[in-house]
């Protein structure tokens, strides 16, 4: 699987409802370290209603300024959910189907 299979994919819950679009992949640095660095491990999908401006980094990693841009991007992404990758049932045709319905 490639990261691009997840990014931009639609996310549907078990009951068929649309949760949104994958706009980020939250990682921890605790994968196996066969080389110099521990491999990143994707833990959760960041799911929002829209795609626009998601790569700018205003939802993660403490990107702050300029204030006005942040306010705008955050207004576009008011409903953001983190979905544990463990709850992914299957991925097909650019759609991620979850095994449950997160609240």
């Amino acid at each position, binding site marked *: 699987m*490639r*990261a691009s299979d997840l990014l931009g994919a639609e996310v549907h819950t078990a009951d068929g409802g649309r949760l949104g679009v994958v706009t980020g992949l*939250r*990682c*921890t640095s605790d994968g196996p370290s066969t080389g110099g660095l521990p*491999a990143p491990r994707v*833990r959760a999908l960041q799911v929002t209603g829209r795609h626009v401006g998601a790569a700018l980094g205003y939802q993660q990693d403490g990107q702050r300024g300029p204030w006005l841009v942040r306010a705008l991007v955050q207004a576009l992404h008011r409903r953001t959910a983190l979905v544990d990758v*463990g709850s992914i049932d299957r991925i097909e045709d650019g759609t991620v189907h979850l095994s449950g319905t997160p609240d």
Partner: protein
Amino acid sequence: MTDDDTFDLRLRLLDRQVVDPDGAMICKVDDVELVPADDGGYVVTALLAGPLALGPRLPGRLGRWTVALARRWADGPDPAPRRIPFERVTELGSAVVLDRTRDQLGIARLEDWVRTHVIDRIPGSRHESE
């Protein structure tokens, strides 16, 4: 939502410049290979580069053409994108640093082709600028 030991893969790894130990530029992280791990999550096993990795991320027809063209140009029946195992990575900063050079990895066919067929035929291509 933000906590210190997590980071975003798209923001900190995808589309980053890949360089060798001396800072020579190799490629971009056009995509990332993920494998489900036994102990949970998807682990990054390799960086993917080249048109076969970038193409699918480009919109519609342009993306398909890129992939089709790259397939025609590649040899072998089932061409895959250039793959750099994650073991090669020594640092994740403003660039992704590897422990090998481009030539050791042998991943830039277009560069090699352009070099031997065009650039090397122009006088002065092997000299530093003055």
